[in-house]
């Protein structure tokens, strides 16, 4: 499974708009595409509509107008049964590793949930052993021990929980994984290892990522392309290298300037670069 050259985009949003009851416009006229195998980062400050955008593209929220096309099909017009089939190929990892797992379920059931939901072969008592084995493999593929499947979420650290979430997300060999701030609740060192894991899985499984983050340092590390949002609108969209070196929109430049750079020499270089660009 190598990323094929993007003939038709895997995901295409067109004129997507979400107005909540009460009149708040969370997402305003967003159009973008995500090609197979690439990582699109969505950045912006909290409240800019990033999270609403992910809920819309996962079809967990009903858009006020606009369309979401996944694999060429319009999700907003899909019948519930067909939508369920599509959900097997788009998965999500959420920000908070402490609330993203049912505290009363064991890891084997948490990671096995997508399998049980979409694969009749994994359901029922007779198939429990096989599902457990598959969960063990998945845990090992995210760097955890297969024996951990019998434990409860509260027995794990934040980084381990996020690995469990990732194992669940890749259980069905999805094409698209939406990562909603997957590392922002983690320590920097743990964060780096989770990012490495994500990159490795992308390579190995040919995954396409929509990576939502407010942390530009992280985005710089993972993104092929970057979408900058502000107040529900898309203010800039472009290749990562281009957005980081020559931001076109003043807001993007502000965001970039706000990133603390740990190395003073690099900081000086960065500053001259932005000054030269501006």
């Amino acid at each position: 499974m190598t990323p094929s050259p993007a003939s038709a985009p895997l995901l295409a949003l067109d004129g997507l708009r979400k107005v909540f009851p009460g009149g708040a416009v969370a997402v305003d006229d967003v159009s973008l595409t995500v090609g197979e195998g690439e990582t699109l980062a969505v950045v912006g400050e909290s409240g800019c509509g990033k999270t609403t955008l992910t809920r819309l593209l996962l079809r967990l929220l009903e858009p006020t107008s606009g369309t979401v096309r996944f694999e060429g099909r319009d999700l907003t017009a899909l019948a519930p049964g067909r939508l369920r089939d599509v959900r097997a190929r788009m998965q999500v990892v959420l920000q908070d590793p402490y609330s993203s797992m049912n505290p009363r379920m064991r890891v084997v059931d948490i990671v096995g949930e997508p399998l049980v939901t979409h694969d009749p072969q994994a359901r029922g008592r007779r198939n429990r052993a096989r599902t457990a084995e598959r969960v063990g493999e998945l845990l090992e593929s995210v760097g955890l021990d297969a024996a951990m499947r019998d434990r409860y979420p509260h027995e794990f650290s934040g980084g381990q929980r996020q690995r469990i979430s990732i194992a669940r997300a890749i259980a069905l060999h999805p094409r698209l994984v939406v990562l909603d701030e997957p590392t922002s609740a983690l320590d920097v060192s743990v964060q780096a290892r989770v990012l490495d894991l994500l990159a490795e899985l992308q390579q190995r499984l040919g995954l396409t990522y929509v990576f939502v983050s407010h942390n530009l340092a992280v985005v710089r590390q993972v993104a092929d392309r970057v979408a900058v949002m502000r107040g529900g609108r898309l203010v800039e969209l472009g290749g990562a290298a281009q957005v980081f070196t020559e931001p076109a929109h003043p807001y993007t430049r502000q965001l970039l300037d706000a990133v603390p750079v740990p190395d003073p020499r690099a900081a000086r270089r960065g500053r001259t670069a932005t000054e030269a660009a501006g």
Partner: protein
Amino acid sequence: MTDSTTTGATASSAPGAGAAGASRTGVLYSLLRNRLAVCALVFLVLAAAAAVFAPLIVPHDPAHQDLLVRLRPPAWQSGGSAEHLLGTDQLGRDLLARVLYGTRVSLLVGAGAALLAGLVGTVVGLSSGYLGGWLDRVLMRLADVQLAFPAILLALAIVGFLGSGLWYVILVLGFTGWVAYARVVRSEVLSLRTRDFVTEARAIGVTDATIMRRHLLPNVLAPLATIGTLHVATAIVAEASLSYLGLGVPKETVTWGGMLSDGQLYLGTAWWVAVFPGVALMLTSLAINITGDALRDVADPKAYRR
């Protein structure tokens, strides 16, 4: 002392139970550390055993009348005999036998009503809270209507209309008690449904019914158990009230409420006729309440790892 009992308890429940057993042991362990709750639990177990094995404990038939020994005082009072440990009532029936047999009706009504109300209330609360929309509005208005009626008054009206009988009492008390469950479950579900694990389940494509069963129900069981326990006590008292008023179960069935209403006439001359069923009623509902409170204290999954 605590060390040895702890290891003993863990070891005995560990085999074959794995991690699930460990968490349940936690709840049980915390419950056992509460001395008062242990006393209450022991009392309830004894009461249940007494209800089941009543014929083995007392030789007397609770309905057998012997007018020659009317209103005999308890054994330790002058005039009492070991034959009737708690004395006899106005028809010469053995009070100990009647109190023990009365436990059957009380526990049956209490548990039956609580289970029925819990079932109805949980289904209503889950669907109301999770599905929301017009269903939620309709169900919650229904709950308001239900609450606006005093339950005991409604029970009175229905029993008066349908006629009395053990199963009618259970049905009536069950169907008038669902609101408490529904409201608590609904409010829990309202906060649970915004949690990430529910969002992820939806994103995976898990159906609403499965989400309610797999993700929501297990997380509302703790408050449910608490309300359920307390409701058992309420239902027992309500049944006694109905029986006291003569609207509960038929006269031939032995109930504490019926005994209370018989005994009040003799309070001045033979206090024991009313006092013993009254004490049984009070102790039982007290024990259930204590257990319910203790259950609420330990039911929080994080609280028992202190």
